[in-house]
């Protein structure tokens, strides 16, 4: 016998079926979005990890006084000394074209690298020394195995001859792979093996600093005034609607505004973090204002009443009690806005931050690149080796973003108070 509580009615069955269905749809949605995320991050890491290591080739260089005058090191032609040493390593190479290919195994910077090593350690002078040099991007791709050596010769940039040289070097233990410090200490370069992320990273940091110091105070003051002090009338409603609209304006429009106003009218220096930061702060302002107003609104009115009832003035009530309670939310909103600004490319293109900048900027009025623009530039470059540089730059950008979000979580936990 079934009791009235256990009878499986039709209604009960359909109700239970719909609950199960919803549960599985929800799980499916989460699984799908996680899969996309894993696929995206995974493919970027797989592609980018190659750029974190670089190949080196050892060449024996005769540093005796015949080649280098110990009293006047700078007078040496390091480039021709390097070329000579390479020719001596492979004496069978005679034709002009082959020689050029041979030099191409090493980075074009080879002369400078030799000079830097000698200046760093003058005791090398006096005799033949086996020294390490950065391999060129094409040699690196072969040595790292990114390019298949068994591919048809016409489908790869390195000829069979060049590969045979590399193999000779490998057999004599004259090749090596090590962590690519250049990627983190150099600026951009036309040569992939020398190109680094530092100038873009510094550019982004400087741009974001300008953006933060401009938008944060303005946005906080605007939000506090609008939320706590402004009379609620047509005008304040109109302003509110417009702030919400501003948050939805495409970023390239802000770029055009920056180009027209900041560069053309006010004559600020182009391609600089100053202008980039100002343009990005136009974009972040509405985001921070909206987030700050939402978290101010979430502070219970009883706190305001308590403070005002104690005889605190409205400004005291706001700054002693309401704003501190809203602070975690405000900070989270700010960092979300900053993270958006960090990834923004379009407005920076408009104000000239897309220029090729090899120097690391040290102030906000020097030309600089920015991380997303650097990614855009490398993705557009023709050399095969820039593919993995692009992914590596994306990894740097993502690490930066994760750090910012961790900071948001930390600040939230630190300032959060129960009420």
């Amino acid at each position, binding site marked *: 016998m079934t009791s009235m509580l256990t009878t499986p009615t039709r209604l009960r069955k359909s109700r239970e079926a719909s609950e199960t269905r919803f549960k599985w749809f929800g799980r499916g949605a989460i699984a799908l979005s996680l899969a996309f995320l894993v696929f995206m991050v995974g493919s970027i890491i797989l592609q980018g990890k190659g750029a974190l290591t670089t190949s080196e080739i050892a060449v024996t260089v005769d540093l005796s006084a015949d080649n280098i005058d110990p009293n006047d090191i700078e007078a040496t032609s390091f480039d021709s000394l390097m070329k000579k040493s390479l020719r001596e390593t492979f004496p069978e190479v005679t034709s002009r074209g082959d020689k050029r290919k041979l030099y191409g195994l090493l980075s074009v910077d080879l002369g400078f690298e030799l000079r830097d090593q000698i200046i760093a350690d003058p005791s090398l002078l006096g005799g033949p020394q086996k020294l390490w040099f950065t391999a060129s991007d094409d040699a690196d791709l072969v040595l790292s195995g990114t390019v298949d050596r068994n591919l048809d010769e016409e489908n790869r940039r390195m000829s069979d001859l060049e590969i045979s040289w590399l193999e000779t070097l490998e057999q004599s233990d004259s090749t090596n792979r090590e962590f690519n410090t250049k990627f983190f200490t150099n600026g951009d370069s036309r040569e992939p093996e020398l190109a680094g992320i530092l100038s873009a990273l510094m550019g982004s940091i400087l741009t974001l600093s300008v953006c933060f110091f401009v938008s944060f105070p303005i946005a906080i003051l605007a939000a506090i005034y609008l939320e706590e002090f402004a009379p609620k009338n047509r005008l304040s409603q109109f302003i509110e609607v417009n702030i919400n609209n501003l948050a939805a304006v495409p970023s390239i429009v802000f770029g055009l505004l920056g180009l027209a106003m900041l560069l053309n009218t006010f004559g600020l220096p182009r391609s600089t973090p100053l202008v980039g930061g100002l343009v990005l702060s136009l974009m972040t302002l509405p985001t921070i204002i909206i987030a700050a107003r939402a978290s101010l609104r979430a502070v219970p009115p009883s706190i305001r009443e308590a403070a*005002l*009832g104690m005889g605190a003035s409205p400004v005291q009530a706001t700054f002693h009690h309401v704003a501190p*309670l809203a602070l975690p939310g405000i900070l989270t909103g700010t960092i979300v806005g900053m993270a958006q600004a960090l990834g923004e490319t379009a407005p920076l293109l408009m104000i000239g931050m897309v220029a090729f900048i090899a120097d690391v900027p040290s102030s906000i009025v020097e030309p600089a690149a920015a991380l997303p623009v650097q990614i855009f530039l490398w993705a557009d470059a023709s050399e095969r080796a820039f593919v993995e540089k692009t992914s590596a730059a994306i990894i740097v950008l993502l690490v930066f973003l994760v750090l910012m979000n961790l900071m948001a979580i930390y600040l939230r936990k630190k300032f959060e108070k129960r009420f």
Partner: protein
Amino acid sequence: MNNIVTEMSGAASVQNKPAVNKAPIFTAKNVDVYYGAKQALDKINLDIPRNKVTSLIGPSGCGKSTFLRCLNRMNDLVDICRVEGDIQLEGQDIYAPEVDVVALRQHVGMVFQKPNPFPKSIYDNIAYGPRIHGLTSSKSELDDIVEWSLQRAGLWKEVSDRLQEPGTGLSGGQQQRLCIARAIAVRPEVILMDEPCSALDPIATATIEELIDELREKFTIVIVTHSMQQAARVSQRTAFFHLGNLVETGATKTLFTSPEDERTQNYITGRIG
């Protein structure tokens, strides 16, 4: 002044020490309050006697809380609220344009329906008022005020060893006593209480009621309450509000035993409410 004398005559028998100032601390004359176009209070004339507990009773929406909030101008916070008429504190019009609302609220403190301690330490909750009003010049003076206030609020024994813990960690009744301690820390003349016990259990309520009775020595108390028993227990004078009108006011005992108005009669016997 005749008006005041007649108002006071009922209460005069309770206290007739010669030193006591018998003039009412608050006098309200023809007070109208509007929320937008809606009239919430109509021609209220009420005096609040000094060092007594006056309770404002009446059914929900009768305007008793609105009247209470006129006394320290908390209604200013409501944009659409408009107050007309004359409310005087110690003979001074509190709605005069030159009045400093901050000073007014220092002299007329308030305790709210829901305990609302600041999310700060117990010490800072109480020290906040004296600090912003510049009442102390040294840390030890401030410590004394905190201790005095907590003792007056009957909370000192319970919290003296954890003054640095958050005020929000106390129980509901303790939080409400903390709010009372916070209110008296700036030495107001009047304390307004807006249904201070409605969120509390009977034991916490009894503690607060005892406290109100003790505080009467130093402060004038105006309390809004839904509970007629509470009004009868704690107050010396009672005012009955109905639909925005002040129906009847008098000594609490008289009002509850022999009300003059039929509406009062109906309310206290439970026929309207």
